[in-house]
C-alpha cells in the first residue's frame, strides 16, 4: 500500500543542515495497522507528513498504491490526499469557528459532493464515532476526547484507504485514549483501512499489527505483534 524507499529528509537553514530522516525504507501493507515510536525529534512526524504528502522528501521514493508520487503536481497531490488519506492530529486541528458537522464535512467541500450528501456523510461519520448528538456544537464546547473523535470523523468521512494519525491519544487521559484506540481498531478491522499511527505510548503501540522504532532519523527496529 505504502512503499518508502531510501527516504531522506534534510532541513536546511543558512547555517545549519539537519538530517531529519536518514535512508528510511519501509513497506506498509493494505489493511495494516502500523505504529511508529521513538524519542521526541527523531523524525516520526516528518515521516508521517511525507507519507501523507504534506511534506516532500529530499531524496528517495514514495509510492502509494503502486503510484509513484514524485511526478505529481499540486493539484494531483491535493486530490490524492483528499480521496486516499485521512489525517488525525494530536492537537485535533479543528476549525473553532465552525460547528462539528461543518468540520467533518470539510474534506467533502473539495470534492464534487452536493450539500445534502455532504451533510448525510458527515452525520454518518459522526455516528460512527458516537457523536451524533453533538453535530451543532462548536469545538470549544467539547472535551479533548470528543474533539479527537470529531477529528476521526473528519478523517473517515471521505472513506480514505489510509489514515495517518499523529499521536492521536497524546493529549488524552488513558480512558479517552482507549476509546480513540478502539475506534481506530474498529476502522482497521471493519473497513480494512490502513492506519499508520505515531505514538509515545508503548501499550497503544502493542495493540497495532507492527511497531517500527526510529532513532535520530533512522529506522532501528521493526516488531510484529500477533493481536
Amino acid at each position, binding site marked *: 500500500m505504502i512503499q518508502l524507499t531510501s527516504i531522506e529528509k534534510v532541513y536546511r537553514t543558512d547555517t545549519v543542515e539537519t538530517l531529519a530522516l536518514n535512508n528510511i525504507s519501509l513497506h506498509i501493507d493494505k489493511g495494516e495497522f502500523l505504529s511508529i515510536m521513538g524519542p521526541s525529534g527523531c523524525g516520526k512526524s*516528518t515521516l508521517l507528513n511525507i507519507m501523507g504528502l*504534506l*511534506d516532500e522528501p529530499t531524496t528517495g521514493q514514495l509510492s502509494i498504491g503502486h503510484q509513484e508520487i514524485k511526478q505529481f503536481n499540486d493539484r494531483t497531490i491535493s486530490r490524492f490526499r483528499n480521496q486516499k488519506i485521512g489525517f488525525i492530529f494530536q492537537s485535533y*486541528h479543528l*476549525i473553532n469557528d465552525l460547528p462539528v458537522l*461543518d468540520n467533518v464535512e*470539510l474534506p467533502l467541500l*473539495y470534492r464534487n459532493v452536493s450539500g445534502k450528501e455532504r451533510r448525510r456523510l458527515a452525520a454518518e461519520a459522526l455516528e460512527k464515532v458516537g457523536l451524533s448528538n453533538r453535530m451543532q456544537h462548536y469545538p470549544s464546547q467539547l472535551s479533548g476526547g470528543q474533539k479527537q473523535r470529531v477529528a476521526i470523523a*473528519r478523517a473517515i468521512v471521505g472513506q480514505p484507504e489510509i489514515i495517518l494519525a499523529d499521536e492521536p491519544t497524546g493529549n488524552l487521559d488513558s480512558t479517552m485514549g482507549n476509546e480513540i484506540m478502539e475506534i481506530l481498531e474498529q476502522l482497521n478491522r471493519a473497513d480494512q483501512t490502513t492506519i499508520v499511527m505515531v505514538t509515545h505510548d508503548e501499550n497503544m503501540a502493542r495493540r497495532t499489527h507492527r511497531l517500527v522504532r526510529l532513532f535520530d532519523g533512522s529506522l532501528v527496529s521493526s516488531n510484529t505483534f500477533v493481536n
Partner: protein
Amino acid sequence: MLQHIFKLIWKKKRSNFLMMLEIFVSFLILFAVWSLSVYTYRNYATPAGLSTERVWTVFLNYNTDQDSVLRINNELVTRHVQSIREIKSFSFAANNLPFSFSSSNRELEFKGKKVLSEIMLVGEDYPAVLGMSLSAGQWFSAADTVGGRRPVVITRHLARDLLGAEEPIGQQISLDGDEKRTVVGVVDYFRHKSSFQEDDNCFFEPAGSADYNLLLQVGTGANAEFEAQLAHSLQQLNPDWTIEIQHLDQMKDTQNQLVLIPILILFVVCGFLVFNVGLGLFGVLFQNISRRKGEIGIRRAVGATKMQVMGYFIGETLVIASFGIGLGFFFAIQIPLLHVLDVEASIYVWGILLAVLSIYLITIGCAFYPSRQAAAIYPATALHEE
C-alpha cells in the same frame, strides 16, 4: 462553499464588521468621485456648440452711459473694425461674453411654465464669429426687428425645458412676465461657461447700443503685433475708452482650470483615503492569514489545492466586501430615488457601477498577495506552527 464562507464570516462578525465598515465608507467615497467624474466627462463629451479658435474678445468701455454717444461710438468702432483686413467677422455683445466671469439670467414663461435662462445680447454676426450653426430656423437680422418684433434664438435645452414637445420656431415666449419674444432659431448646444459646463438654458437676442464689447474672428496671420496695433488703433478712436483684448481660447482654459483644480484636489484626497483603506485592508488580511495558519494547514491536508486556498481567502474577502457594498448601495441609491440633486439618474447608476467595480478590484488587489502567501505555505509547516 459560499455557505461555508458565510458561516465563518458570521462567526467572526465582530472583526469582520470593521472591515465591512471600511469598505462601506470607501464605497460612498468612490461613488461620489465616480459620479462626479461621469458627470464631468459627459459634459466634456457634449458638443460645445461654439469654437474659440482665433476668436478674440475686446472688452470695451466707452466710459459714458449716454445712449446717443454709445450709438455713435458703436458706429465708429464698426467702421474701424470693418476696415481691418485681418478681422474676418465681428459682433457686439453684452458683458457676459463666453468664458467670461459675467452671467445674466432672466425668467422666461410659456403657457404658465417658467424657467430661468442665460440671456446673451449679441450682434447679427455672432454665430459667424463663434462658428455656431443652427439646427432649426435662422439667426435674427435687422429685418426681424421691424414692427417692434423681438426675435430670439434659443438652445435646444431651453426649447425642451420651456416648450416641451412643441415646435419652437414661431413660438411667443414672455420675458420677465410681460415682454414677448418670438423664437426664430434654435441652436443645439451653447456651452459658454467652461468645457465641463452642463448643457443648459440660453437664449440670444439682438444687442442694444449699451452692449459694446466685441468678439472678433481674426485671420491666421493675426499675431501679437497685430493685437498691439489693434489695441492702439482702437485707443486712437478715443483716448478716454478703456480697452482690453483677450483670446477666447485662453479665457476658456482659465475657466476650465477653475473647474478642474477643485475636482483634481478632491480626487487626490479621495485617492489618498482609498489608498489608506486599501493599505488597512491589506494589513488586516495579512494578520488574519497568519492567525489562521492552522486552518490553512488543515484545508491543505484534507485536499484543498493552492488555488483553492487562495480562492477561499479572496472569496471570503469579496463576501465581506459585498456586505459593505450592499450597505453603501442602499444609501447611494437614495440620491437618485429621492432626487436629492438635479442630475440625471444614469450618472448615479454609472457612479454605483464603477464604485462597485473599484471596490472589488481594490479588494482583490489587497487580498491577492496575502492569499497567495497563504496558499504557498507548506501544509506540514502550517500544521506545525499551529
